[in-house]
């Protein structure tokens, strides 16, 4: 028995289009947001959920958090079905949606927190301790009397996160929690999430487009595209499949003779810079370097592996997303 079990989940939406001229009825199209998606998650895991926009990530999070009812399929979280046992189920989960604020907009956040305490029936002592701990870790002490609307985006996100963890949920859903945050806030948030996961054993399901979030936080990733699960496993393994190219930037003293470069590599010219992309599997890096040296006197050279975002973009392309 796994903590989260999802089996053959399907969900589709009907989208009505604008009525075309001369037609009486509007055309409808059906979007399959989830098609036969299955996966398991054990307690204490920190999982990254990636995929391009419209892949069905948010839909699955909404189903697992009890908001949406799927068309068919089975899901259980800690033995409960989210959409039928909604009220009991949500008592044990925390949700942060980067795009939506859940705390009350116009009142000091401490008031929102006190209301949450009553809503989740948290005991007074436990609440005070947890609040102390969270406001410490999230650097919110001085902001408790400030309404959400007067906060910066980073502060709001931290305040939301605090609100979602006050009742010590066993499972935390994060939907793009670092969207729009600056570097310092992002790093802090990641550090906090790792700590929360390690110390409290909170299971975290993270949806994001920020690959650095995933790389920093998750061992396991799931890739979703067109509503189907395309990959489920370790991140490095996934990347190594697509991480086949290396790029070298070189600048020469005099115009070089690069005609000896094999055809399997690509050559681009950017001002005085030459950008050579090749696959180490086909031309070993040492051969490549000696070829480049023979072409002329090098002034400067840098070698780069591919950026994770590019890899993901390539992966999406090859998976036809």
């Amino acid at each position, binding site marked *: 028995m796994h903590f989260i079990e999802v089996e053959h989940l399907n969900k589709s939406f009907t989208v009505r289009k604008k009525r075309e001229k001369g037609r009486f009825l509007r055309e409808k199209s059906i979007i399959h947001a989830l098609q036969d998606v299955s996966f398991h998650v054990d307690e204490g895991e920190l999982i990254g959920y990636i995929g391009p926009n419209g892949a069905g990530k948010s839909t699955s999070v909404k189903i697992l*958090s009890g908001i949406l009812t799927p068309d068919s399929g089975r899901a259980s979280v800690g033995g409960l079905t989210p959409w039928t046992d909604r009220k009991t189920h949500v008592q044990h989960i925390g949700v942060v*949606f980067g795009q939506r604020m859940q705390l009350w907009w116009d009142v000091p956040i401490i008031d929102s927190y006190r*209301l949450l305490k009553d809503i989740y029936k948290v005991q007074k002592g436990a609440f005070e301790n947890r609040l102390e701990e969270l406001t410490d870790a999230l650097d919110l002490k001085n902001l408790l009397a400030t309404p959400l609307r007067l906060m910066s985006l980073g502060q709001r996100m931290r305040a939301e996160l605090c609100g979602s963890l006050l009742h010590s949920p066993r499972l935390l859903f994060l939907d793009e929690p670092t969207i729009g945050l600056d570097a310092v806030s992002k790093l802090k948030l990641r550090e906090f999430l790792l700590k929360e996961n390690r110390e409290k054993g909170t299971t975290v399901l993270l949806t994001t487009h920020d690959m650095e979030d995933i790389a920093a936080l998750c061992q396991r990733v799931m890739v979703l595209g067109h509503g189907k699960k395309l990959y489920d496993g370790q991140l490095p393994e996934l990347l190594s499949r697509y991480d086949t190219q290396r790029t070298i930037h070189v600048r020469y003293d005099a115009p070089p003779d690069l005609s000896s470069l094999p055809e399997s590599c690509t050559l681009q010219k950017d001002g005085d810079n030459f950008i050579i992309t090749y696959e180490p599997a086909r031309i070993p890096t040492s051969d490549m370097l000696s070829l480049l040296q023979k072409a002329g006197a090098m002034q400067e050279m840098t070698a780069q592996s591919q950026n994770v975002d590019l890899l993901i973009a390539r992966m999406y392309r090859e998976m036809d997303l």
Partner: protein
Amino acid sequence: MRKYFSTFLMRWKMETQYRGAALGGIICQMVFGLILISVYRALYMGNPQSMPLSAIVTYVWLQQAFFRMLLSSDNDLMDKIRTGGIAYEMCRPVSLYGYYYARIMAMKLMGSLLRAVPMLVLASLLPEGWGIGAPASVPALLLALMGLALGLFCMCALENITMGITMRTIDFKGFQALLNLLMTTFSGNILPLTLFPDAWQRVVRLLPYAQLLDAPIRLYTGETPLHQAGQVFLIQGIWLCIFVGIGLYLWKRNTRKMIVQGG
């Protein structure tokens, strides 16, 4: 129950932040009241009606003072319905119906108290024939307050039905415009129901719109004698049950069929 009460208190507290709006409301409602009274005074000069003028004046002031109970909606909720944010409230272990019922109740109650108390004081300072009259008796006042409370429960339940329908239509304007028209007409806000033809009154007084203000005002002025108060409360209670029933059903259906696309 505690969570709904806390929600109520929080919304109540929030309402006190909008004192500027309350002041604006007071001025607006005072002006409205004075205009309406001028109109009725002119009418009475030419053609006196069966109701004494002082009763009409009192009726107008009470209607104006509690106007916010009649027409006010939870803007936050309407925003959330429009943007889909309402769905995210389902991540809380509460009944959405109860949660928003508590909110609208706090909003209508606190919002109208903030306005009504200063307005009624001002209206009682006005000269004879312009100002509000005293209640028929102390028991009449107490029964009127009870009627007002029950009426408020009815109105909040009605508001939740409107919101339940708004969840399906997404935009609230059309439906609410229709509802507001019915509301201002049949609540006695524009024309006191006591001035409607007798035959009309027999029907109109039974309508839900009359329950919030018309019914308690009649208790206040003594037009409804004390021994008939039970009958008034019964009608209010029946509407309350019907409205809560319809509202709960609508919200339950809506939460099952909720669709949120994107993000």
